[in-house]
């Protein structure tokens, strides 16, 4: 049997195994999950043959599975992030109920993603897409919070996206008679203009929805923050990347086969708008999970912009950011989860001062935040740099400004996250908080290490991206281990950067610490100078509510009307309409009989038009 099919079967098998294991007892289930976390990536890395293809015909539709390098790149994200998240989940979900369902859905969503990335035809793509969607839906409503609102919203939007794709798929099938991706791309040039637009835009809509692009992002904040954090890292890190994956190949192939650049430009614009608005929203969140959720949307906005621009460098940047985003958002959601589990909440107005209680979590978050903010010398900078350069090279100055605005504003929420949870006053109610278990911290730290390495040697990721881009039609993509170059030949040498920053850092570290730090002693955060007043221990000196109030005042005109409101009102209106419609069923049998006669008469009267005799 083909290794691809075996891979799918292994994941499905582990899903069932974990489910039944957990229904027997917790230990058995956990062993199964751990085995899954180890064996699935092991199999993928060692046994899966990436050149293999499996094709079969079902229900008259030809289907084919097989990796290409582009899919492999995204698979890499899935196969590295998911096992880490699974291991993290073993710690995170230790005391939860219904863990069987959790791991079952978790593994099934991995199956969905794996399948998407090896699909070479629309049908299997769609099947796996839907599997991914419903399994993630189960996880979104897993905690039972907001089932109606968030859960339904997620499902509705996912369904809208998926069905847009579905519609595109059947139209493609009608026009090409085939379901293969390649046939579509090759035949694209011969389509009529309407079909080009319809299929292209529908596909883009479907994928863009999963990557939470602005007008259709409203599912994301709730879904990301309601899901158990163990899964959210995968949700935001890997699952939303499936949208990016799709956008990538659709946009590129459409560009290559028909000059539809403006579609990409629109997409890029939407991405930029998303980035700005989502960042603004993130700034004013008080729940760390919500903050991260909005931040994810914003980050995906960058990625979508990169993909939408469609130049070599911008796609390179988009893909690189996608990889990095998976890593740092993975860490951050895991950290938020760790805080939630250890301190009981992620509300930044309540939780405070955990840095000394949870140093490892803090360290991982710090690294991730630096990467997220794009500050050198960590990996995030590399992506940001490439994105800016590609935009500037392309002359999209407004977009550059928007992205800049977004990433500058991102410092605000980055800081808020760290400050809100870890820094600030150390309140007595969090006296007994302990560091999370190693099962949770180790995955975070591993990802942090990855982020640090990519700061100087992004080439380890570039390698795969360059391979992947050959499948998008960009052959001979230049990359170097640690030198970034833009289209105008300007470059940044990351080794120099890291080296100089490192040297300066070490020099001053020695200067400051030598004969210094050791001799000082720790004093409580209540022991601060406060305009000459003495602070009593019970005084609440935490400043965390309305953290960016002035900024909120500035942005009030933009943010006062949320997009969600429009959707809600739309939903209510539709509901009222439906309520009106169902009055047709009055409950009176005579009325129904009346309908029958009316229907009959209408048909009789219009029989000439209907039958055309």
């Amino acid at each position, binding site marked *: 049997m083909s290794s691809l099919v075996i891979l799918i079967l292994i994941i499905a098998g582990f899903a069932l195994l974990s489910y039944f294991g957990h229904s027997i007892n917790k230990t058995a289930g956990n062993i199964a999950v751990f085995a899954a976390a180890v064996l699935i990536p092991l199999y993928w890395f060692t046994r899966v043959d990436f050149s293999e293809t499996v094709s079969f015909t079902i229900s008259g539709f030809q289907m084919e599975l097989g990796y290409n390098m582009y899919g492999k790149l995204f698979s890499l994200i899935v196969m590295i992030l998911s096992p880490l998240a699974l291991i993290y989940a073993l710690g995170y979900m230790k005391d939860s109920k219904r863990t069987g369902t959790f791991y079952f859905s978790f593994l099934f969503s991995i199956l969905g993603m794996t399948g998407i990335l090896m699909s070479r035809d629309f049908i299997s793509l769609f099947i796996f897409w839907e599997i991914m969607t*419903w399994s993630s839906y189960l996880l979104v409503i897993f905690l039972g919070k907001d089932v109606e609102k968030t*859960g339904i919203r997620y499902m509705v939007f996912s369904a809208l996206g998926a069905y847009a794709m579905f519609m595109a798929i059947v139209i493609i099938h009608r026009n090409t008679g085939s379901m293969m991706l390649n046939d579509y791309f090759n035949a694209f040039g011969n389509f009529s203009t309407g079909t080009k637009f319809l299929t292209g835009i529908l596909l883009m809509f479907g994928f863009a929805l999963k990557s939470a692009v602005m007008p259709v992002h409203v599912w994301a904040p709730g879904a990301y923050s309601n899901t158990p954090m163990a899964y959210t890292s995968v949700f935001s890190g890997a699952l939303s990347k499936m949208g990016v994956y799709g956008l990538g190949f659709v946009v590129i192939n459409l560009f290559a086969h028909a000059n539809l650049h403006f579609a990409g430009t629109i997409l890029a614009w939407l991405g930029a708008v998303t980035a700005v608005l989502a960042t603004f929203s993130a700034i004013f969140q008080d729940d760390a999970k919500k903050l991260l959720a909005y931040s994810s949307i914003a980050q995906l906005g960058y990625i979508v912009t990169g993909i939408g621009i469609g130049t070599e460098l911008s796609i390179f940047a988009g893909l690189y950011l996608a990889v990095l985003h998976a890593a740092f958002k993975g860490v951050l959601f895991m950290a938020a989860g760790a805080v939630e589990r250890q301190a009981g909440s992620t509300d930044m107005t309540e939780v405070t001062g955990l840095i000394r209680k949870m140093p490892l979590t803090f360290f991982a978050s710090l690294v991730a935040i630096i990467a997220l903010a794009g500050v050198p010398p960590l990996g995030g900078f590399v992506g940001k740099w490439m994105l800016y350069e590609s935009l500037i090279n392309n002359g999209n100055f407004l977009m550059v400004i928007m992205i800049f605005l977004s990433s500058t504003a991102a410092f605000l929420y980055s800081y808020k996250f760290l400050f809100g949870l870890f820094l600030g006053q150390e309140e007595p109610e969090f006296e007994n908080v302990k560091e999370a278990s190693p099962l949770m911290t180790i995955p975070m730290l591993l990802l942090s290490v990855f982020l640090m390495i990519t700061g100087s040697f992004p080439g380890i990721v570039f390698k795969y991206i360059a391979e992947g881009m050959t499948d998008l039609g960009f052959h001979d993509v230049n990359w170097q281990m640690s030198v970034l170059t833009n289209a105008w030949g300007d470059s940044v040498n990351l080794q120099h950067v890291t080296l100089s920053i490192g040297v300066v850092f070490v020099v001053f570290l020695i200067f400051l610490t030598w004969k210094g730090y050791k001799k000082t002693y720790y004093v409580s955060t209540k022991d601060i100078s406060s305009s000459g007043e003495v602070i009593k221990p019970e005084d609440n000196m935490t400043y965390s509510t309305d953290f960016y109030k002035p900024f909120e005042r500035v942005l009030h005109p933009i943010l006062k009307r949320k997009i969600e409101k429009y959707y809600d009102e739309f939903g209510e209106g539709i509901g009222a309409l*439906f309520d009106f419609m169902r009055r047709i069923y009055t409950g009176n*049998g005579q009325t129904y009989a009346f309908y*029958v006669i009316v229907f009959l008469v209408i048909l*009789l009267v219009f029989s000439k038009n209907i*039958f055309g005799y």
Partner: protein
Amino acid sequence: MTDPVYFIAIPLLTAFLLPLFGKIYKPLIGIIPGLVFAFTAYISFDLYFNLEPGKPVIVQMAGWAPPWGINLVFGEFSGLIVSLITFLAFLVWVYSYNFKKVGFDNSKKYFTLLMLMVAGSIGVVLTGDIFNMFVFLEITAISSYGLTAFYKGRDSAEAAFKFLLIGSLSSTFILLAILLLYKQTGTLNMAEIAIKSQAIDPKIKSIIAILFFVGFGIEAEMFPLNGWVPDAYSQAPGPVAASFASILAKSGIYALIRVFYTVLDVEGIFNLLLTAGLLTIIFAEFTAMRQTRLRRMLAYSSIGQMGLIMVAFSFNTKAGVFAGLFLMFNHAVIKTLLFLASGFLTYSTKQKKIRDLDGFGKIMPFTSLMFGLGAFAIVGLPPFSGFWGKLNMLTATADSNLYLVIALILVVAVVEIIYYFKVIGRLYFRERHEDVNIQKPTWNAVLAMSILALVIIGVGLYPDFITDYLAKATNELFDKAGYIKHVLPSLSLN
């Protein structure tokens, strides 16, 4: 031992004798119908799988060749539907075998009515005579009235009365149409009518078509003729509602298809069917979304599915018919599962409201799982069988260049997702606050539901289990000349 006549004769014989068996030994009343269902299922499969390609089994009644005698046609199309009906009927029996314990006694009448309804539906599907079809339709209808009003208390009589009222109108119209047809052609045999109908004055033919359309449309749950459906489905016991969805509605739509594909050649009817189907989908699904009672919601959803099937058949293309058959299969299997599961879910709640189901996932894990599975399948999520139906449906729609219809179907599918997932959310992800005394599913109900679930998953994972048969059935339906040739070897389509 395999003659299509047995489909009718054996259930009727048993129905007549059942009261006597009841006098001998009470449980026989439950067991004998089961044997009959098993037997019909066996012969339908036996006949169906031994069918020679392109050669339907045709039996004549009373030794008279078709135009003069009544004939039964067990072809690839009708055979498929009959097999489906008998299979599901058997499962419904398995499910309700000792349903007595959980709600209704008087099982003598229940099984008799159920058996006759099944026999009637099979008759509708098999018969080659238009008036005979009417007779069987009436058998189906009257037994359905009885089954609807079966439960005492509640509002079952109200539901049944509405059903009867509309059903009577339906039979009036069908009878009128048959009379007009007879007047125009002088025959009642469908094959012969098919030949002769070409000569009918188009104006009269259109009136006949409209009368048939309205008459069968009532049975096929077409909007705006479906006022009876939600009431009947919600008031009848779970297995009855299941058999309505899987058997009654199927025979209605079969009649519609048979008449318009084989008997009358009126082109315009397909656009009408398309319009009616779309209206049905829209009104049913949108109404379903605002339902607070589980069974009523399922009923509206069922109407919506029927609308979808009508749309599929309205394309008048092979792809459309194939998709329609696939949808019929899905609807029959999945809706049956949903209704069967809902029978136990709503048993313990007074109001039968959806919000009473909070946290049932933990209390009734198996039933809830079955319901969830059914919901996943019916909204067309892979890897369940519903997906393939929807896929084929949409490709067929696209092949007919009806892009707007695709969009509409998909929007409606989103609505479907909303209301089904609301229920799932309540079942699984809500905490239960007050205690209920629940009815655990009996072993036979578990068996029936498991089989259905296995079919759903099996077909979902590998749809080619059934696609060949569907394709064959499609070809047969389109082979009008072949049908006439087999039924009336001496005549042919000119």
